[in-house]
């Protein structure tokens, strides 16, 4: 067992939120066509509130801290927050579009000991990337920033969200990442808008196309094992947890709302009204999430893919049932292996995607 697995197991045993994702703002300097956020400021936490939350995170045992947004660097206090987080000993990962990173900022991030910077890159062709972000010149600025970060020796991951508009460019982005010395990840998951609007789902590529990516060794490594038929589901698998959300990880929005995960919009409390640790320990919503084992899932417990599926309970929750299947993951399991899923059978081939979506709605700010 690796030390990281041991660390996770220990955190799970002790009920420690080892990882926290904090969005500093939902405001952004890009307008990506697939973005699910409401970019208006509905009363973001102040610098002092965020610093207080970081102390609470440290006291609760959070070690891995992801700072993201919106565009986190749009906040003038972003570096002050990162500095504070680092002085509290967090392992900090920054998710950004890098539009505001120049040599000076790259130097600062290096000096602060940020462990990793994750940057969205949609295409290696400016006409495609800039059309998605709706900001002319954005690819050029982002690539320059990656060069600055790499020249400081920072670890950079280029996250390539897959959509209809950039589906031909995965190899190009992959090669660009290679040239820049960055890691590459491909994500075919498009998440509905915060208000439940599902129109962005039209941007998703078809299952048949996802299949061609899943069978591409430069993207998935060993295709044979990646696309292998699922291993038998035994009692041990069925006693397993759906994922780390609410067990060893959590998400806090710029308004202080606490959720099991950034992709699981079940409000569990607000740090402006309660201490973080109180919410983490006592929230009935988190207790419910924590009580679920694979054997309790309505359809998935009888699915041959149960042990190998990437089923996201957050996406399932958005579809109306946190114990149900997630359509996007059903699709992925099917195109990966060619084996029909229990979710597909339950839906009897219905093409309807994600009915009755539930989404993150910011808690109105407290008036004091």
């Amino acid at each position: 067992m690796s030390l990281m697995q041991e660390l996770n197991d220990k955190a799970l045993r002790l009920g420690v939120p080892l990882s926290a994702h904090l969005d500093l703002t939902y405001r952004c300097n890009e307008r990506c066509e697939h973005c699910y956020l409401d970019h208006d400021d509905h009363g973001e936490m102040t610098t002092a509130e965020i610093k207080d939350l970081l102390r609470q995170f440290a006291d609760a045992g959070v070690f891995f801290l992801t700072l993201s947004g919106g565009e986190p660097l749009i906040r003038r206090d972003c570096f002050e927050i990162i500095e504070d987080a680092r002085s509290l000993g967090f392992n900090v990962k920054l998710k950004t579009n890098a539009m505001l990173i120049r040599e000076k900022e790259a130097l600062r991030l290096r000096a602060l000991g940020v462990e990793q910077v994750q940057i969205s890159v949609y295409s290696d062709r400016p006409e495609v990337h800039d059309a998605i972000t709706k900001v002319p010149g954005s690819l050029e600025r982002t690539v320059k920033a990656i060069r600055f970060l790499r020249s400081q020796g920072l670890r950079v991951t280029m996250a390539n969200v897959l959509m209809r508009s950039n589906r031909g460019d995965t190899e190009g982005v992959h090669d660009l990442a290679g040239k820049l010395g960055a890691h590459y990840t491909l994500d075919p998951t498009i998440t509905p808008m915060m208000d439940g609007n599902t129109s962005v789902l039209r941007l998703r590529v078809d299952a048949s196309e996802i299949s061609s990516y899943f069978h591409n060794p430069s993207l998935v490594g060993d295709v044979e094992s990646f696309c292998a038929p699922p291993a038998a589901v035994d009692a041990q698998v069925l006693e397993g947890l759906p994922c780390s959300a609410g067990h060893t990880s959590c998400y806090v929005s710029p308004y202080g709302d606490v959720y099991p995960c950034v992709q699981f919009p079940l409000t569990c409390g607000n740090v402006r009204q309660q201490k973080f640790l109180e919410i983490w320990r006592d929230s009935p919503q988190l207790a419910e999430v924590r009580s679920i084992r694979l054997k309790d899932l309505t359809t998935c417990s009888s699915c041959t893919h149960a042990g190998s599926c990437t089923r996201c309970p957050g996406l399932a929750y958005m579809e109306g049932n946190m114990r149900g299947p997630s359509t996007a993951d059903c699709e992925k399991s099917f195109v990966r292996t060619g084996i029909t899923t229990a979710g597909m059978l339950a839906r009897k081939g219905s093409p309807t995607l994600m009915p009755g979506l539930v989404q993150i709605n910011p808690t109105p700010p407290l008036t004091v």
Partner: protein
Amino acid sequence: MSEKYISRSKSVAARTLGGEMMIMSAKDSTLFSLSEVATLIWEAADGHTPLSEIVERRICAEFDVRSDVAYRDAEQLVEELATRGILSISSRPVPDAQGPAVEAP
């Protein structure tokens, strides 16, 4: 014996989990778990307390060990931690040593 001063590296993350100190280096994302003695030394590595004093106050006070033996072992340990980029060693006090704070949950 020339004195040694040790400082926590600014590029690592650190957290205590269930009494065990976990350290992750930002340079190569390697995760380490420190032993009890290494944790005491790490916590005391403020850049201006001499290693000999750290050994006397933190190690010899807690463990039944002769101070010359403890110092030799501690020297070896800090060399090892320095090789891994977790600590830095200096022959003079480091005034602005500001590695991560060491408060534990």
